[in-house]
């Protein structure tokens, strides 16, 4: 069922390049002396959450920050390797705000909101200044200026990096900035606190309910606004490059309370991950795609090839990306690279003991640039690879295969980053973001920090200003009592099933369904199957789950059960969203909709919109709402990387 109710994106009027400045001028401001009268709850302290909490506190707001991690420094953002984009044009290679904007809209396969993307490109330059000022040790050239690399499909060098640990260094920068505010008493930090419910009163977000993961205590927290910066939901696939604890619960609880969930089926499969080694594999490790700058991707032409890589002559190697896409070669966007790897593996050309990978070969760049140079660029990745596989990429090519990596879908937000629930904001990977149907490399860090540092701290004032003089809702209010009861009931339910199978079992089985049917390639038949099979498994979950241990202590199984329960509902919505979208775009590839060359074929006539889903109740499927997307600055073209 599709509703026509219009979603107000609140995109400001005026020329694209002036929208953000005009908007900042027009939105309501909170006077500096009044800011301390507003309490803002920031859930999540990754890049988006830490930068938002720090900045809001600097501005004078009363901030409380929540994370289920033992310290904010461990958020999943820490794992980002490759880099962060910014339209600095330091390399004088023709980059500009407009080019970054253009590349991002095009890279997202025309499924993002132009005005948001333009703002992202605009503030990208400030992020680098801000992070350098925080002491982030970005890579430098000998002259002392910042170094850049070109990354994942970009034809300019606009990616800033800190060795292979860019996410770590950026997160530490934002974390330290926030810890300064913690030390000053301006941010109240709650660690090991898991948000379990969003609390609403009169249609507005007024607080949250958390479970203390150490003591099991259930507590309520009240504020004038709630910001969810709780990351992405890639772990619905079970195997992904995400940290083990990444989950959708915070966003999903908000969804069930009325926040529309946008484009859930837009997930990104990253081409360069280490293939699974055995059935006990618990997660997949990403090998930064910066490796594609120097590594060549190939498979043997003969499916029965038995020789080691080095013994296979050039003529018998199939450099499938270079052959099919001479202009971009190994640097085609992620979705294109991933799908092509899947194709050759499906043809039986895969390498490795399980024949589930393709080679990423550094032999040529080592002989061209010298081992030292290549080692300097990638030593930590090479070492990581060797630690995991026992093989040295200097001697034998890496084996790689696509894995789930990022989720473009998320809570629908307007230009102010506010969800469809007044007072509830979403930032970073948790919102449906600026990446459309496909995210370009090095753009997630940029978006998380843009949201947290430069967008949300301004836009949030618009909904706060009218609330001046009101106190946060009392914790004795029945809305908090009810929400706490809901949380307790849910927890008791998990413990009372007393079935035979662990939460991990169900997660693994769910992951297989999601990967097989809603993975790199989707079709109607598979998606319909996904819906019915996910439901069947979900029923088994609610009747045969086994969670042992108590509620008043750390209990990872219990935490996991709650997360898996939400993944089931999300998985089904992903399938429905993918089914509804009978076109291919970016990371969403419907095999029914492809060009003669096997590329994603968009249908702009019918699908140039955001699908935002509204929760009804347990027994009624979500209702779809549409936000029409207009492409004024970046004319619609079929993406071609030939």
């Amino acid at each position, binding site marked *: 069922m599709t509703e026509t109710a219009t979603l107000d994106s609140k995109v400001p009027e005026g020329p694209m390049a002036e929208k953000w400045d005009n908007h900042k001028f027009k939105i309501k401001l909170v006077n500096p002396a009044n800011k301390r009268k507003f309490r803002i709850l920031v859930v999540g302290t990754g890049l988006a959450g830490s930068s938002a909490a720090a900045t809001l506190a600097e501005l004078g707001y009363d901030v409380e920050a929540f994370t289920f991690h033992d310290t904010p420094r461990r958020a999943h953002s820490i794992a980002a390797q490759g880099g962060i984009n910014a339209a600095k044009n330091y390399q004088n290679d023709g980059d500009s705000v407009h080019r970054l904007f253009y590349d991002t809209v095009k890279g997202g396969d025309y499924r993002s909101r132009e005005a948001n993307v333009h703002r992202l490109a605009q503030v990208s330059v400030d992020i680098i200044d801000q992070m350098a000022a925080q002491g982030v040790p970005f890579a430098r050239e000998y002259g002392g200026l910042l170094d850049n690399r070109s990354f994942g499909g970009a034809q300019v060098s606009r990616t800033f990096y800190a060795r292979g640990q860019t996410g770590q*260094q950026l997160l530490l920068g934002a974390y330290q900035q926030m810890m300064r505010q913690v030390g000053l008493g301006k941010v109240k930090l709650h660690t090991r606190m898991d948000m379990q419910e969003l609390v609403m009163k009169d249609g507005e977000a007024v607080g949250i309910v958390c479970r203390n993961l150490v003591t099991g205590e259930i507590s309520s927290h009240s504020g004038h606004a709630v910001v969810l910066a709780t990351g992405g939901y890639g772990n619905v696939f079970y195997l992904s490059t995400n940290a*083990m604890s990444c989950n959708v619960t915070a966003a999903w609880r908000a969804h069930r309370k009325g926040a529309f969930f946008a484009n859930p089926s837009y997930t990104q499969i990253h081409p360069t991950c280490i293939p699974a*080694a055995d059935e006990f594999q618990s997660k997949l490790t990403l090998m930064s795609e910066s490796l594609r700058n120097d590594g060549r991707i190939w498979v043997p032409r003969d499916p029965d090839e038995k020789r080691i890589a080095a013994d296979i002559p050039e003529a018998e190697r199939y450099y499938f990306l270079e052959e099919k896409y001479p202009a971009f070669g190994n640097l085609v966007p992620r979705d294109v690279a991933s799908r092509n790897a899947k194709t050759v593996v499906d043809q039986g050309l895969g390498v490795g003991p399980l024949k589930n990978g393709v080679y990423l070969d550094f032999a040529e760049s080592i002989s061209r640039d010298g081992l030292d140079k290549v080692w300097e660029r990638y030593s930590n990745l090479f070492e990581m690879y060797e630690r995991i596989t026992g093989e040295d990429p200097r001697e034998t090519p890496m084996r790689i295969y696509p894995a789930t990596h990022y989720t473009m879908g998320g809570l629908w937000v307007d230009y102010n980053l506010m969800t469809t629930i007044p007072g509830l904001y979403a930032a970073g990977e948790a919102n449906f973001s600026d990446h459309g149907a496909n995210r370009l490399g090095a753009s997630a860090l940029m978006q998380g920090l843009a949201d947290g540092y430069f967008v949300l701290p301004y836009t949030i004032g618009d909904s706060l200003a009218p609330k001046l003089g009101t106190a946060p809702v009392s914790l004795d209010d029945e809305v908090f009592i009810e929400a706490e009861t809901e949380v307790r009931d849910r927890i008791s339910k998990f413990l009372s099933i007393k079935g035979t199978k662990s939460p991990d079992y169900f997660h693994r089985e769910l992951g297989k369904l999601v990967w097989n049917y809603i993975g790199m390639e989707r079709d109607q038949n598979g998606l319909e199957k996904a819906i019915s099979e996910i439901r069947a498994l979900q029923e088994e979950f609610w009747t045969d789950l086994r969670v*042992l241990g108590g509620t008043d202590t750390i209990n990872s199984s219990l935490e996991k059960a709650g997360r898996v329960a939400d993944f089931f509902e999300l998985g089904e919505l992903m399938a429905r969203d993918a089914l509804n979208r009978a076109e291919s775009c970016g990371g969403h590839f419907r095999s029914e909709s492809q060009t003669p060359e096997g590329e994603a074929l968009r249908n702009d006539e019918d699908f140039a919109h955001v699908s935002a889903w509204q929760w009804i109740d347990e027994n009624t499927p979500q209702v779809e709402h549409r936000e029409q997307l207009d492409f004024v600055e970046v004319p619609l073209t079929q993406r071609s990387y030939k």
Partner: protein
Amino acid sequence: MSANTLSLTLQIWRQEGPNTTGAFETHNVSGIPDDASFLEMLDVLNENLIEAGKIPIEFPHDCREGICGTCGVMINGRAHGQEKGTAVCQLHMRKFNDGDTIAIEPWRATAFPVIKDLVVDRSALDHIVASGGFVSAPTGTAADANDTPIPKEVADSAMDAAACIGCGACVAACPNSAGQLFTSAKLWHLNSLPQGQPERFRRTEAMVDTMESFFGSCTNHGECSEACPKEISLDFIAYMNRDYVKSKVFNRKLASQK
């Protein structure tokens, strides 16, 4: 890659909570592929336990990529196990032999109380950072990043220190449970960069004093750096000590000018 499997005897520390006494428990696992990671081996054990109706073992982990610093246990008495420069999530079973007995314990340090089984509380490290481990540069105030060139060698050396993942292995490995390696790495990261100069001596004094309120004293054993999964250098401790002495003089001079 190989397809060998291992059978192992595990002696694992179990402890219900911070105020209860713990003890070793013995468990056997078999059929562990040697391509599995150490934590995947523990996953298998936990699945077996759940199947047998026993409460699974709590152990810290998250990224499983050696970068978040969440994981960390003593393996046969060594922080993160015997492999140099490797966090336990990156330790693979091919480094063990079939039939091995492996002892697994939580970090042992007064500043890191055990919360449950192998999980400890490391929030003391956050207190050190909150006391001065930052540059005070509020959002929106920064000048263009290239206005401050930084010699590559300086940036690289800051990065060497900034690579610390905050796992606490240094503290766990130290006979005195000292926090010097962690603190000095953060100090060198910030104190060596131009952006860190204005607060250099304030930062140093504050962080060292906070460190001393939680952790033991350093007597130059060097076990910390040996155990560090990121191989953070002991040199940073020397730099910290030098800056600390300077900071005492410098900060007193400032105080007397007030």
